[in-house]
């Protein structure tokens, strides 16, 4: 790119350092919004404690006695997935539109910070929160509810988490991009995740539920994510518990989410006319 006279010799700050700083900044912002803290961290934890208190001694599964497995394994894994989803999908779909409505996104776009680093910082912070959430849930599961972890299944568990977290982060960004205002985005995020959780093996097993409930759950990625992760804690499944079909399905949703997010993303509140006006330059400057 051409530069005019009077250019300073100073060099650009490194991208890795900027990304790290942006991630830290987003985590700090998150930490200071009580509602975000509650819905993202506290709610899944409360659900885990309540559901285990009520149903903890039951078993889940279909068929013979040998295929039944303890609910604590089921709930801990299902709610760990729920916690990962609230930290990525719900969190991003809520916070990005709030910052957009406040004009914060537009202001950042006036600075030389490459736009991919701003967005990357928001996504990285949500991934860190999701990982933290999962660790807290599993730790509580092991300590309080006797959760058993099978070493053979750990690789599948980690890959499932990685695919799920990435996909739900992309879907959160897609909702943030498409929904016009912060209040609408908050409604959409909660109205999609909470009802879906009931048909997706998160709050209860839908193995014996009516067919339409099962089909509804099968259409969306939350059930695939929860089931794939639960399998890695299911003692009745032998071996590594890989679920390539489910992972592919989750990833497909994630790719669609990413495409929607990238093509529809807006930096200004809706109605202000500046839609995607600087995409080309953003691409040029992302060095």
């Amino acid at each position, binding site marked *: 790119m*051409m530069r*005019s006279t009077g250019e300073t010799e100073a060099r*650009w700050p490194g991208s890795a350092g900027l990304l790290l700083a942006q991630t830290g900044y987003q985590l700090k*912002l998150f930490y200071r919004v009580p509602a975000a803290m509650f819905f993202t961290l506290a709610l899944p934890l409360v659900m885990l404690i309540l559901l285990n208190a009520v149903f903890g001694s039951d078993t889940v599964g279909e068929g013979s006695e040998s295929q039944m497995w303890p609910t604590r394994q089921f709930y801990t894994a299902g709610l760990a997935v729920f916690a990962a989803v609230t930290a990525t999908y719900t969190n991003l779909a809520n916070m990005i539109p709030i910052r957009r409505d406040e004009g914060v996104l537009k202001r950042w776009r*006036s600075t030389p910070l490459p736009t991919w680093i701003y967005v990357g910082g928001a996504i990285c912070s949500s991934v860190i929160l999701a990982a933290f959430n999962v660790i807290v849930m599993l730790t509580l599961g092991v300590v309080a509810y006797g959760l058993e972890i099978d070493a053979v299944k750990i690789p599948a568990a980690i890959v499932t988490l990685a695919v799920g977290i990435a996909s739900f982060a992309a879907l959160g960004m897609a909702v943030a991009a498409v929904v016009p205002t912060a209040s609408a985005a908050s409604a959409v995020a909660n109205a999609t995740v909470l009802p879906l959780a009931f048909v997706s093996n998160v709050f209860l097993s839908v193995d014996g539920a009516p067919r339409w409930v099962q089909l509804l759950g099968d259409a969306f990625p939350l059930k695939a994510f929860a089931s794939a992760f639960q399998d890695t804690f299911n003692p009745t499944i032998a071996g590594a518990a890989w679920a390539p079909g489910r992972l592919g399905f989750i990833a497909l949703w994630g790719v669609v989410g990413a495409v929607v997010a990238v093509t529809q993303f807006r930096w200004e509140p809706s109605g202000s*006319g500046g839609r995607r006006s600087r995409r080309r330059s953003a691409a040029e400057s992302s060095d």
Partner: protein
Amino acid sequence: MSVSEPMSPIVVRGLRKEYRSKDSSASGTVVAVDGLDLDVAAGEVYALLGHNGAGKTTAIEILEGHRMRTSGEVKVLGVDPGDGGRDLRDRIGVVLQTSGVEPELSVAEVLEIARRSYRSPRSTSEVIDVIGLNDKADQRVGSLSGGQARRVALGLGIIGRPELLFLDEPTTGFDPVARRSFWDLISRLAAEGTTVLLTTHYLDEAEHLADRVGVMADGRLIAEGTPADLIRSFGGSTVRFSLPESEAVTWSEVLQGEIAAQVSGTVTVTASGRVEISSSSPTSDLSVVTAWAVSRRVELPDLEVVRSSLEDVFIRLGQDR
């Protein structure tokens, strides 16, 4: 094109911006900026003045790179802001109409994270010093007054050591004291050589801060010059006085008849009984008024001649349209 030759920080030729009409029943487009030409020289403070909807914000946001233009030529620091990218944004400072500062962070925190993205930023403590918020540095932005929060936005605008600073209605909603001190701040930045383009609908602000003023209406510049030039060519002076209270109502009739016939300017009587004669020859008009008052044995204790303000120019330009 050679980019090393010195060139005005802002050069705009025939800038046009159309929006699709939001009202589906209306045909076609809304023209927000309609053939704007603008040159801002290095070190100059230039004020774009106009009513709401005149096209000021659209114009400045095209220069900032936030909007694409429909047609016309725009160069900001020698490059097209539409694809200036990171390098241009390192050299300009932008204070948007909506400050867009995170309310959950402290003053020092927002400045600290912002400065990291520039190549040679000012230090956070220097900026806090400049914006005069030393005692608020650790306070959350959300807890500041409107004027203080706007200072933070200005601090964010200057932390990258910009050659060119954009200010979109910087003092809207300020109390008079806060405005004064904000003006002092901008004057100091300008004195250090920063080029400033600001939009405002406050005439006193333009008159106080700007080296040159461009008056915008319907997306076009309808007048341009130094504040003094504009006042000289469109304004002139005003002879004004109040009528003694007791007889004000009946006298206003008399005055309009007798004085209006002899003075060069137009006579208006305000609701409070104040008579104003906007005049291009104040000396002779003043003598008309004093001759009349002496002959009637009336004392006019607050008789005065004042140079027109930019406000008078603005109102006159508005009436001519």
